[in-house]
């Protein structure tokens, strides 16, 4: 019997006053009913009627219409911490992948640092303090969402701690913390993004743009390597820096992979055209160290520029794309098998492998830059000392905390450079 037929039957039953089917919403107790047990004569023209709680039926029609992804939504402002020269990639990620507005932070000031110091525990590693300053400024500028990355050291706990501190300070925001969802890898992160930021991201488009974003990171690092190698030998002072800034501006304006490639090609051409005054055998220094401080100009007080100004060819294997996009820890560790049997920390293998590579390539010296309290990089120091002894390559160890004056740094760098230059001449 179909549902409709049954329903019709029941209405008929009710109309006739006979016992309806138990499936109906109404039920009748007749004289014969054992539960009532009161005899009523057959002449009775009425009946006791009561309502039964019926289990809710499932909605008969499944929702056929698939949820439509909206292409317009309330614009949210997303901010990423300041990190070296990667803000074009962050901007691309926010605008093209997350489909939100990117909040471009102005250059960090002394106030940024002070805000960071005030609101962090004293002896947490320095990037935490820099980022705290960045977040507070971002929230002051109206950010809705803050993006924090995860990592295998203390960095993995940054997001949660910073979120709590900012909430304790009274700010209202959402944090996209890539420490969540890490168990499932990319899938988990994808879910996290959809959940916290924007459920309307068109996934195929997002993935395509994410790959383009990774590509941009690689190109930025490639351009930077070229800049570091040649920037110190420009004939006219400041030309290289201007070319670099122009490249960054063009990168910031890109929206597709093709545009990224075009901007990169143009930028590299401009840099290659700059006339150089490069000696055949310049002083070459490699920079190794911790992922944030060794790269970020704001926190290492312009280490790159300072070295380049002295006329040094600078090399730095350590960068975002080498660490994340194409990184094979085990193979890299094979090259330093005599120094490290185990993976010693997030960037340790890269630090040691790069140091040994520079030594083998005949670099004149090495600068090891890290923030105060960075456990993995501190643990690299004894191993670097061995490499330094074995290859007769001087190493300058720099530990950065929240200082803002670069006088001390300048003195040490100058002395280091003089020593290297004299050593080179004596050869």
């Amino acid at each position, binding site marked *: 019997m179909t549902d409709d037929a049954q329903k019709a039957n029941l209405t008929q039953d009710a109309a006739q006053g006979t016992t309806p089917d138990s499936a109906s919403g109404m039920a009748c107790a007749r004289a014969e009913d054992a539960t009532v047990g009161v005899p009523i004569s057959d002449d009775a023209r009425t009946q006791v009627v009561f309502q039964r709680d019926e289990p809710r039926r499932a909605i008969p029609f499944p929702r056929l219409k698939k949820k439509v992804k909206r292409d317009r939504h309330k614009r949210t402002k997303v901010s990423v911490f300041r990190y070296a020269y990667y803000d074009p990639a962050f901007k691309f990620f926010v605008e093209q992948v997350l489909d939100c507005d990117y909040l471009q932070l102005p250059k960090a000031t002394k106030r940024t640092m002070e805000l960071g110091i005030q609101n962090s*525990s004293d*002896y947490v590693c320095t990037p935490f303090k820099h980022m705290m300053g960045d977040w507070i400024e971002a929230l002051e500028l109206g950010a809705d969402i803050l993006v924090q990355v995860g990592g295998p*050291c203390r960095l993995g706990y940054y997001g949660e701690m910073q979120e709590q501190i900012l909430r304790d300070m009274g700010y209202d925001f959402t944090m996209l913390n890539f420490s*969540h969802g890490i168990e499932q890898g990319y899938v988990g992160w994808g879910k996290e993004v959809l959940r916290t930021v924007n459920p309307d991201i068109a996934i195929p488009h997002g993935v395509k743009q994410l790959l383009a974003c990774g590509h941009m990171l690689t190109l930025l690092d490639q351009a930077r390597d070229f800049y570091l190698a040649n920037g110190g030998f420009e004939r006219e002072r400041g030309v290289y820096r201007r070319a670099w800034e122009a490249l960054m501006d063009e990168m910031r304006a890109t929206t597709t992979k093709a545009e990224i490639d075009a901007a990169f090609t143009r930028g590299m051409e401009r840099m290659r055209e700059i006339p150089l005054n490069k000696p055949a055998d310049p002083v070459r220094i490699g920079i190794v160290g911790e992922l944030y401080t060794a790269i970020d100009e704001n926190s290492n007080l312009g280490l790159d520029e300072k070295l380049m100004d002295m006329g040094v060819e600078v090399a730095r294997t350590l960068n975002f794309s080498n660490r994340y996009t194409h990184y094979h820890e085990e193979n890299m560790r094979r090259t330093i098998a005599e120094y490290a049997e185990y993976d010693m*920390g997030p960037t*340790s293998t890269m630090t040691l492998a790069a140091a040994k590579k520079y030594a083998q390539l005949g670099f004149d010296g090495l600068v090891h830059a890290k923030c105060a309290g960075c*456990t993995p990089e501190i643990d690299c*120091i*004894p191993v670097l000392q061995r490499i330094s002894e074995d290859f007769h390559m001087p190493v300058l160890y720099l530990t950065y905390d929240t200082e803002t004056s670069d006088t001390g740094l300048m003195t040490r760098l100058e002395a280091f450079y003089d020593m290297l230059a004299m050593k080179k001449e004596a050869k």
Partner: protein
Amino acid sequence: MSDNAVRTIGIPRSLLFYEYGVLWQRFFEELGFQVVVSPPTDRAIFERGEAASVDEVCLASKTFMGHVAALAEGDQCDALFVPSFDNSDIRVGFCTKYQALPDLVRATFPQMRPQLVTMRVQKASDKKRMRADYLELARRLGANPRQASRAYKRALHAQEASDAARAKAQQETLALLAKYRKVVASDRTGTEQPPLAILLVAHPYIAHDPYIAGDIVAAIERLGATVLFADEADRTPALKRSFEFSETLPWMINRHLAGAVLQLHEQVDGIVLLSAFPCGPDSMFDDAIMRNVQGVPILNLMIDAQSGSAGTETRLESFIDILRFQGKGSYLHD
């Protein structure tokens, strides 16, 4: 390097020895090795470690190097056991220090005579993987599979029994404290003082190291308070509980401590957070505890290689005074 020539294995009494020492000792003994554990830390050991280390490393790491030096210099052992604890475990991993230890020891003491016996513990929270790692070590040391699995089984049981005994003792202490509190509460004359219980939250290699925290534990006890060690709380429920505290806290030991704090904070009068300078995990964990655990007074102590303990003792004294006054109601009701 032939591991088969090894007769005596030395274990530094530092860092994770306080977490897995029973297991290690028993494991090597069952495999037929003699085990030498370095003596408890003293000034000489610490100074030796400090001289060998880079300035910036944490106090515990310096102590560890001291123990390695003490074992290496004496002619007591022909191998040193220094494992590497991987932090591939995302939520219950270890500080990168434990990952780097074997290579760090090698780089610090390149001329060291005893060879290193190392292993990689990939996931300390995964019993099966951990067993496989130890069996692999036993195989490298020349044990047959049967010997190896028997040795590991016994060693693990010994470790678990020792942990369980500690946890049980702590429960008994808590029960006793509760009983005393009841007695005092029913005492109408008000002459009896309720007992004070202090939860000492510190990594086990800090809390139980006589050189690093011995003075502090002694000082608290001298001031008439009972010390409960957070790291002695039953580990499995504590780790589970810690996810209520934080989702992304990456370190196992800190999770254990956080879980213990959640379980015990209502049963103690005060909490002492003790960290060795500059401990990476604690630099954030202490802040998290101070922000999240409300209702119990907390004293955050940082210890460095200072030679005198007068400063910390003063702070402890005033802390315990405050707790006593609070127990009476407040300063005003005395």
